[in-house]
């Protein structure tokens, strides 16, 4: 815009500008609340949120921007914040790579943010976390590698991949569906996640009948990879259940009810383990789900739950210890209410939030994990995910 057109606009805009100025001046007078700033880092052109992909609603995928759940958490905490004479604000920064993320994080920290919520790819987060001077809460990456960074200021409210597969493995064990046929997709992410599934199979004493790679393909020359009838036939691998690992989601959707043998499907289709399910009925869950539906005009997913919970964690920590929210977050008695019927706290070794997971087929909640009967010497929630003795991180 050049100078002339700006001056041309001025007379018309002047009253509005003055009103805005007055409002800005009036604000600090009306409320003597101290500012409490929270940052949110999100990625530019988030392909997970492409309209056509979100429409398909693959289980375990985000259903919309994290900011919606963050705002809801801020709104519902307004009352406590008012009582504590605090005025919470959110600054959302969109970044295109790790370097931009690092710069934005520095700026947010220097600007007085008490903590920063992060919905970034795992690789970017791994690069920026070690140098962070304020608590970071990972609300969008399930990678177990992030839980092995041992960065004391990096917290995770989204359950790790390992937690989700442990939850399913517990369910299979409780059903005595012990022989697992593993279908594994072609991506690097699928390979990494299939390895996590194998670890859970081992941990819970299930039997891996076979691992079969698949490919989305109608090519008759590749029918061993693309034909579901062949992929799920016994062929010497007797199995009770089919576990499909498909980070993309398209293949997994085709597996339930189309297996060669009448077998249940779990993993990325059929029965899945999630941080949240919008149709969960217990522990006041419907209220949370309805509140989110009203605010965001869509059902609440596990990613939304993690963003909401992460925001609540930062706010609660900042209110408990305004000088050092990090100290509050790591206190042994720091407990969050996740509407899942238990007290949720951060693990001292890798800062992962302990939480029950919901087992759902997308229509209803079939069960939850830890399943009844699973025991642990300290906290039964620690049967989901990497436990202290297995973790490279030491309690801090």
């Amino acid at each position, binding site marked *: 815009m050049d100078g002339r057109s700006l001056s041309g606009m001025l007379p018309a805009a002047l009253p509005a500008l003055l009103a805005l100025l007055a409002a800005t001046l009036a604000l600090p007078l009306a409320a003597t609340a101290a500012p409490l700033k929270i940052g949110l880092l999100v990625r530019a052109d988030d392909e997970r949120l492409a309209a056509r992909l979100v429409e398909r609603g693959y289980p375990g995928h985000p259903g919309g921007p994290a900011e919606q759940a963050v705002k809801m958490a801020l709104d*519902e*905490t307004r*009352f*406590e914040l008012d*009582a504590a004479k605090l005025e919470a604000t959110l600054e959302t920064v969109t970044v295109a790579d790790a370097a931009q993320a690092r710069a934005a994080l520095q700026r947010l920290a220097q600007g007085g943010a008490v903590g920063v919520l992060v919905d970034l790819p795992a690789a970017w987060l791994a690069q920026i976390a070690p140098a962070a001077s304020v608590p970071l809460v990972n609300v969008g990456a399930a990678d177990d590698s992030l839980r092995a960074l041992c960065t004391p200021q990096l917290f995770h409210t989204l359950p790790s991949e390992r937690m989700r597969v442990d939850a399913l493995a517990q369910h299979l064990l409780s059903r005595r569906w012990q022989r697992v046929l593993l279908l594994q997709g072609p991506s690097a992410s699928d390979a990494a996640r299939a390895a996590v599934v194998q670890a859970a199979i081992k941990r819970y004493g299930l039997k891996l009948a076979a691992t079969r790679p698949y490919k989305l393909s109608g090519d008759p020359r590749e029918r061993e990879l693309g034909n579901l009838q062949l992929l799920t036939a016994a062929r010497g691998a007797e199995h009770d259940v089919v576990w499909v690992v498909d980070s993309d989601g398209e293949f997994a959707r085709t597996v339930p009810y189309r297996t060669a043998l009448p077998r249940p499907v779990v993993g990325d289709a059929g029965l899945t383990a999630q941080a949240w399910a919008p149709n969960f009925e217990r522990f*006041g869950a419907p*209220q949370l789900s*309805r*509140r989110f539906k009203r605010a965001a005009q869509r059902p609440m997913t596990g990613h939304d739950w993690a963003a909401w919970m992460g925001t609540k964690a930062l706010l609660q920590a900042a209110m408990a210890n305004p000088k050092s929210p990090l100290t509050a977050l790591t206190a042994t008695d720091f*407990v969050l*209410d996740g509407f899942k*019927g*238990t*007290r949720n706290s951060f693990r001292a070794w890798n800062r992962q939030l302990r939480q029950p997971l919901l087992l759902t087929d997308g229509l209803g909640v079939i069960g939850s994990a830890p399943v009844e009967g699973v025991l642990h010497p300290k*906290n039964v*929630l620690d049967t989901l995910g990497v436990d202290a003795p297995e973790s490279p991180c030491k309690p801090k």
Partner: protein
Amino acid sequence: MSHRKHLVPACLLIMAALVSAGVDQAQAQTQPLSGVAIVSSEKDDALALIDTRSLAVTGTITTCKRPRHMRLSVDGKQLLVACGDSGQADVISLATGQSVGRIALGDDPEIFDLSPDGKLLYVSNEEDGELGIIDMATKKRLGAVAVGAEPEGVIVSPDGKRIYVTSEVASMVHVVDAATRKIEKNIAVGKRPRRFAFSANGGELWVSNELGASISVIDTRTLAVTKTIPFEVKGMRADDISPVDMKLSRDGQTMYVGLGRANHVAFVDTAQKSTRALVLSGKRAWGLGLNRDGSRLFVANGLSDDVTIIDTASAKALKTVPAGRVPHSVVVVD
């Protein structure tokens, strides 16, 4: 055709069955409610009736959708049942056992209480984050007080001047001035505060903290928390203890507390502020009801769909009877 001959008697039979069912239902519904523990079942849209002598379920009353909290009217002649899904209170006459009216309570009503003169009803509307105020004579909503997200417990002070409301999300008790309908004070309590009970002289207000596994005791004069009572159950972790409903014994010396997923009821000495007995109940022991002489405590077990009856003198469970799907609250009329 030969079919016809058979059809006619069949039709008559069905009609006879319908008529007799109607009669049975009418008879069941005009039974006066006395000598019974009334249990609301969230998933049955019905109230189960347990005979206080035989301790057996003797009938059910159909009511509004998802009945939860209940209490008697101030004159003791009616039972008010708050229904979460219908957004109404069903008003049931104790003399006839029949519904005599409905009162709109707003969206997702949870717990309610009445002013001492019975003229006003205060209800927590979870979804709107409000304390709704309803005129009992006109059944009109007079207004609402905005409170923290997910208000739950509501209790009116014995003098009617204050209404106390818990906010599950804000972990606070809001003290509302009945005259100005403004919040007078917010008191921070334990995590996920659920229900209230007054001490015998009204000097203390007890608040159950479901995720705090404790009770906060508030001095109603200074409006400050004077004591936090933690719970411990042998063989259980703090995470498994989730106190919800409370009832004061008739002599005022014991507070009974349903410990939720710890599956026990705690007998808390009100003077010492310590647990003197734990009684094993069913799964998720939460709603409590006490009979008139205080000898029997009825415990609604939300996850085992039954009610445990406890002899309060010996602190022993006498019997557990099935009582509908997801029993929530108990009111004893005897």
